[in-house]
């Protein structure tokens, strides 16, 4: 590095500073966006102009960085580090061993990244269609499941409300604009919170009947988990079920079938496991409901059935 | 096990002594007083807090002379209707004291309870003595509580609709009170100072209730 002209070092320093600045600006912007539009006193206009301002600064930082990076030349070779090995007093500094260590790490990381890349390529778990360019026509025909207008979901929920009036109490709130948060109260057994994006379920939380989904200031709290182990377990199961029932082509059907499935939890405490015939296993009741038959199973009993 | 109540009494932290000043204002001047109180009390930026309560006074009467009747006042909020607002209030006989004491002092127990309290007291042998509705506004400054309220007779039908109820008078009752642990006499001075600030709009005084009942 010492061979580099001082201008070059200065440039590198500058580029590093710019990168830092860009990062902090982007973080700030995302922070603002994730905090949401719940600030009632500010109207939309000020909010929009604020976002525009931060977007502008991000843009400016980015172009600065781009121009800065153009002036940088690639550093070839590993510089003076090659000369380290001919240093006779190698034992006095630990630099050489450190460099060796970091080289090993980099190598390992490359290897792992390659594996991960291959794996992800094999099992794509993208939930949304990516226009690949090959079938542009077909994609235009299918409306994206998350871009349905809000009233579509309202209609669907109204339908479900009437249909399951005896067993479930379904209510909708929209705390942050268009995304709907649906609360389902199932008998006197449990409460479930489903967060929608468009007409796709994005997030699930299950709590006990006596627990609340509102925090002290009356806002909907979608993050906190249930106090009880059984409902934390069911939260996991319901999340798994939303993936199972996920049908981007027919989102209505997906929601209807998950509601029917969710209803089978009304016997959560009263139904023994269909395999072992007992109520409890490790202090938990039969928390799993079969996705096809809706029969009650313990988590471990379910695994044993699946293995057969 | 020592229960929390006896622990509370021993360490003198359970509030059970009420300091009270009372007054009355004609309906036509109520707004001026509310305005003044809003300026003097905490949370001036908020509108005065309204309340509308139903109070039932239950009495336990003994057969013998040595058993003084005991009164329990059961109160609940009518508007907004709230099942958790039920409570029993016990008030001791009020001591007027001499000139050096600025307020009325009486024992006071406020005990929140579940909504089956009426049935409970009836089964214990209490009889309903009288009942009424109170509607008004509530202010607080520090630990001082100020209520400006009007008392209504219960409608004969027993309904709690304010429109069918008959007001007892053309004036509002104004009460300034603090419930504190025993022995905190200095609070009476604070109350006197506060009452001074409301003059001449209203004269808050210690009202000897014994003399009232004789008349």
């Amino acid at each position, binding site marked *: 590095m010492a061979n580099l002209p001082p201008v070059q070092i200065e440039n590198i320093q500058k580029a590093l500073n710019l990168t830092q600045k860009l990062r902090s600006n982007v973080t700030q912007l995302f922070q603002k966006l994730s905090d949401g539009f719940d600030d009632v006193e500010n109207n939309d206009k000020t909010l929009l102009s604020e976002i525009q301002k931060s977007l502008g600064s991000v843009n400016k930082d980015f172009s600065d960085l781009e121009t800065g990076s153009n002036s940088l030349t690639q550093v070839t070779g590993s510089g003076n580090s090659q000369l380290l090995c001919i240093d006779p007093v190698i034992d006095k500094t630990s630099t050489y061993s450190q460099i060796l260590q970091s080289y090993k790490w980099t190598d390992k990381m490359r290897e792992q990244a390659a594996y991960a890349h291959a794996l992800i390529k094999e099992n794509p778990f993208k939930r949304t269609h990516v226009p690949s360019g090959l079938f542009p026509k077909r994609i235009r025909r299918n409306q994206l499941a998350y871009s349905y207008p809000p009233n579509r979901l309202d209609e669907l929920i109204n339908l479900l409300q009437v249909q399951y009036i005896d067993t479930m109490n379904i209510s909708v709130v929209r705390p942050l604009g268009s995304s709907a948060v649906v609360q389902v109260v199932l008998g006197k*057994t449990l409460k479930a919170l489903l967060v929608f994006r468009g007409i796709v379920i994005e997030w699930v939380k299950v709590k006990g009947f006596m627990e609340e989904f509102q925090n002290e200031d009356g806002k909907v709290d979608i993050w906190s988990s249930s106090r009880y182990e059984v409902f934390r377990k069911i939260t996991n199961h319901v999340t798994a079920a939303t993936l199972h029932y996920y049908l981007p082509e027919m989102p209505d059907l997906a929601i209807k079938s998950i509601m029917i499935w969710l209803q089978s939890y009304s016997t959560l405490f009263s139904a023994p496991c269909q395999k072992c015939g007992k109520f409890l296993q490790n202090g938990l009741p039969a928390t799993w409901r079969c996705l096809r038959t809706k029969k009650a199973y313990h988590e471990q009993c379910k695994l044993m059935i699946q293995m057969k | 096990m020592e229960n929390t109540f006896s622990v509370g009494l021993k360490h003198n932290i359970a509030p*059970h002594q009420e300091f009270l000043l009372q007054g009355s204002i004609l309906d036509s001047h109520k707004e001026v007083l509310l305005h003044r109180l809003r300026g003097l009390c905490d949370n001036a930026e908020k509108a005065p807090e309204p309340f509308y309560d139903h109070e039932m006074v239950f009495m336990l009467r003994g057969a013998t002379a040595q058993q003084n009747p005991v009164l329990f006042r059961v109160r609940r909020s009518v508007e907004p209707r709230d099942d958790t607002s039920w409570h029993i209030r016990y008030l001791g006989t009020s001591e007027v004291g001499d000139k050096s004491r600025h307020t009325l002092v009486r024992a006071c127990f406020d005990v929140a309870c579940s909504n089956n309290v009426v049935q409970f007291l009836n089964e214990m042998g209490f009889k309903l003595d009288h009942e009424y509705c109170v509607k008004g506004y509530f202010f607080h400054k520090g630990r001082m509580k100020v209520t400006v309220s009007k008392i209504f007779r219960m409608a004969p039908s027993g309904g709690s609709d304010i429109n069918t109820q008959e007001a007892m008078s053309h004036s509002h009752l104004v009460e300034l009170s603090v419930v504190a642990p025993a022995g905190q006499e200095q609070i009476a001075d604070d109350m006197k100072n506060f009452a001074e600030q409301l003059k001449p709009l209203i004269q808050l005084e210690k009202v000897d209730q014994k003399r009232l009942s004789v008349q």
Partner: protein
Amino acid sequence: MGVVSVYMFPVPEGKSGQQVVESLQKSIELLGATKTGNFCVDCETFQTSIQNTQQRQVNILHSSDHPASCFAILDAGTCLVADSLFDGLMQKLKHYYQQRKGSKIESKGQRYEFGDFVFKVGSVSLASSFKGILLEIEYCPCIIAGDCWGLLKEMASSIVGNVAEQQPNVIKNKLEHVYTTADTMCQYLEHFNNYKKQTIPPTAVSTGR
């Protein structure tokens, strides 16, 4: 706050209460439960002091799990849940209701938690003499006794065996309703009354305190 069942655990002959309590605690610990402190449920009885009127009783119960509350239960089973200041109100009624001497009975012991279950092993003492053992099992997530009775019974029978078969009267009458702590206190009162009946004949009302 969930559904609770309180069982009376018999002390077999030739064993001391302490031994039985220890063996119960051991079987709960073997289950995998962790100790979460002590608990205490106490009960005092007040009685009408006038002889010629109808005899009435008020039982005042406290539970260490609800330190700010006080449960007052009448003979008919009406249970008032109130602030602990209610004790002060009872003192104001001393010309009408008087505390029965030597009526203070309590269940005291260890509290355990296991998943969503809470166990309480209490030894009952009346006027500081040992009377028996009460085991309380609570299943916290559920509020309808009828729903989780089977589950609760299964858990109980793994600890107390056949004793788990007996369904408390309070639960029997409230299978479909929302279960509350007041119902737990009624169960304790029922057991306390049984213990009192077993041993001492009803004593005369004490005069003055």
